[in-house]
Each structure stands twice: as C-alpha cells, then as structure tokens.
C-alpha cells in the first residue's frame, strides 16, 4: 500500500539531486559578497523549508487520523515528524556553519528564522518521549496526533512572535529569496527545493513500507507460532 510508485519516485529523487548538485557547483554564479561559502544556502534553506513543511504536513495527517480513526494516518504523521527532525538537525548544523563563515559566530541570536527554528526543533524533539511513554497503542496514536496538531499550529505563531521580538532587523540573505535573487541562483535554488522535497517523500514512503513490512512479518511469525503450538 505504501510501496506503490516507490521505484520511479526514488529514481526521480536521485536524478533531481544530482542535477541540483551539478547546478550548484557549475551553473550558479559565485556570490559577490560571500564567495564560495554562500553555496551552503542551497542545502540549508531547502532543508529548512522541507522540514517545516513536513511538520505542518504531519499535523494535517494527524487531523485525518483523528477524523477517520484510521491508524495508518498516525503512522504517516509519525514518520513525517521523524524525517523532519532528521532534516532539522541538518538545518541547525548547516546554519551554524554558515553563520560562522559569514558572521564569525557559530550562533547568532538576532537571526529570527534560526532562533524560531531552534524552538520548533526543541518542541518536536519531545514527540519521541511522549509517544513512547504511552503503552496502549490506540491511545499512543491518539495522543501523538493531538501533539502533532498543536505543534503544527504552533509553528507559524512562533515564527511571528520571534520576528516581533526583533526590534532592529538584521540584514538577511533569506529575505532576498523572494524576488531579488539573480536568475541563475533562483533556478538553482528552485531545483534544490524540488530535489529535497522528492528526497523527503521517497524516504518517507520507504520508511512507511519498511514499518508496514516488519509489522506484517511480526504478525505472520506469531501466527506460525500459534499453529506450531496447536500442532505440538
């Protein structure tokens, strides 16, 4: 059920990722101000956008779970949060490297996007202890979904609040992504976002398939044991 279309999706993800790397290194011009270091932007920003998108998508899947009572939606939501946390770790690391290279510090508190991201990341890290400290599987799915919905709604509120806390706006590269990015950089950036999204969806489907398969295997094993007991 989850494995449908996994193969073409995986191929598309690999091809787009390779294309994105080629564009980053051979097509996009060097940044006049920051030089080669600016290339980390093509990994850092798409990763952040896809991770946040994954968190919000997990919230929507959780709504679907509570509406329908179908526990496969809870599984989808769980895997989406799991992958977004992994991407989030990457975002914080690449963000720190970029900050060190261009501002001279590993961490800058007056960068609202980075700070908001850290708060969201810290919140979602609590998903694991919460989920795995509830034993009853049905209740575990329900409580996890409630968490995913509340946290998903928290993401935009948090970004607004942290931005409000900034009295003086810091000059940002990120704010330029809207319009003033030169053509070649813009194209490269868009391909990078597409590649990251495809990678995320592929990994998500793969993880879901793996989880589903191992659950099936477990069920078959226990049935086999029951049959052996009945025979013996």
């Amino acid at each position, binding site marked *: 059920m989850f494995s449908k279309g996994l193969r073409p999706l995986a191929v598309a993800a690999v091809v787009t990722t390779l294309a994105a790397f080629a564009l980053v290194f051979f097509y996009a011009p060097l940044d006049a101000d920051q030089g080669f270091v600016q290339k980390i932007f093509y990994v850092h920003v798409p990763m952040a956008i896809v991770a946040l998108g994954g968190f919000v998508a997990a919230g929507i899947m959780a709504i679907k779970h*509570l509406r329908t009572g179908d526990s496969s939606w809870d599984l989808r939501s769980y895997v989406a949060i799991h992958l977004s946390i992994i991407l989030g770790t990457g975002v914080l690391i690449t963000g720190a490297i970029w900050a060190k290279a261009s501002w001279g510090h590993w961490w800058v508190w007056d960068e609202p996007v980075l700070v908001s991201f850290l*708060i*969201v990341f*810290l*919140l979602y*890290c*609590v998903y694991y*202890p*919460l989920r795995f*400290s*509830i*034993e*009853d599987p049905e*209740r575990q799915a*329900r*409580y996890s*979904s*409630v*968490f995913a*919905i*509340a946290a998903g*709604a*928290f993401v935009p*509120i*948090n970004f*607004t*609040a*942290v931005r*409000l*806390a900034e009295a003086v706006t810091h000059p940002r590269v990120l704010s330029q992504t809207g319009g003033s990015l030169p053509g070649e950089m813009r194209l490269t950036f868009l391909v990078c976002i597409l590649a990251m999204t495809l990678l995320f969806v592929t990994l998500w489907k793969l993880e879901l398939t793996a989880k589903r398969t191992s659950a099936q295997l477990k069920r078959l094993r226990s049935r086999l044991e029951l049959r052996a007991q009945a025979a013996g």
Partner: protein
Amino acid sequence: MIRTAAAVLRKDLLIEWRTKEAVPAMALFTVTVYVLFHFGLDRDSLDGELASGVLWVTLLLAAVIGVTRLFAAEREQGGLDAFLLAPVDRTAMFVAKAAALFVYLVALEIVAVPAFAVLLLGPDLFDGLPELVLILLLADVGLAAVGALVSALAAESRARELIVPLLLLPLVVPLLIGAASATEPLFRAGGEPEDLGRYLALLGGYDLVFLLIALAVFDFLLDD
C-alpha cells in the same frame, strides 16, 4: 456544559483550598528562585529587561508545577473514569481545568509580583501597575489554555513529570516574548509603556489560537 464545568471547577478549587497543595508550593518556588537570581546575578536590585526577564522566567517555571499537578489527582483517584461515565460534554473538563489553572496563576501572582517588587525590583512597581495587571491577565489566559492541554497530554504518559516541562516551556516561548517585551519598559525608571499594543496583540492572538486548538482536540484525549 457551563454547569458541568462550573461543578468540576468548584470541586478543584475546594480541594485546593483544603489541601493547599499547588498554589503555596508555586509561591514558595518563586521566592526561592528570586533568592537564586539574587546570588546568581550578584545584584541587589534589577530594572528594565533584566527585571522583566527574571520575573517572567520565574513565573513560567512556577507554572510548570501547577501544570504537573493539574490532572494528577484525577488520574490517581479515578475521578476521570467517573467523569467519562457521566452523560456530560467532555469539553467541560478542559474548560474547568483551564479555569482552575487560571485561578491558581492569579493567586500565585498576587503573592509573587509584590514579593518580586520587595526583593529585587529597583524602580517603583506602582508606576506601571495597570498595564502590568493587563499583561499578567492576558498571559495567564494563554498559559491556562496551553497548560491544561499539556497536562492532559502528559497525563497518560509514564514519564509525566519529565514531559510537562519539556513540552510546556517551548510552547510558551511566544508568550514569554510578548509578556517580557511588554513588561520591560514598565520596569525602567519612570515606567512609561512602550509598544504595548503590539505585544498585547501578540498575547491576545496566542490566547485565541491556543484556546481554539485546545477546545478542538481536547475531546480526543479523554475518549476511551
């Protein structure tokens, strides 16, 4: 629903009045934290952003105590099972618990804010008192809504005492930003409010969003 909520709230407040479990502990905790800040910062009096930060961080940490205890008695004594058996709206439980937490927080602040003014605050508290009361009340509404939701979420977990602070504190960061930024100019000499409308709007928006979310999802935490 209002009648059910009022009955549960009355019961909670009566228990709190007789056992004196949550609010005195929270008040004691805030005064202890003021002492810690006095030695940790090595300052006799605070003003401006330092004062507002110390006050708000202390209040939020004290709120963690109240939130951890909010559903404890209900789970331990089986009150929740009885509530679920009764033919009443489940949302009433959320309304009652949030209202109880709101009352606890107001009671706490009646003690903790004057204590802060006596022990640590440099400028006079009375200069900006009406604005401060407004900020406190708005922050309490949001804190009560999020607190009741977090408390219910963590109630079924084996690691309740661990989950509550980890879950509550990141969720109230926007509240801290709004409240601390709005309070900071009040704690400067003179106590003139500054940018108050912007931060009150942030607090109000936060309250509204989390009240609505909590009302929408709370039923799923009780459905058994």
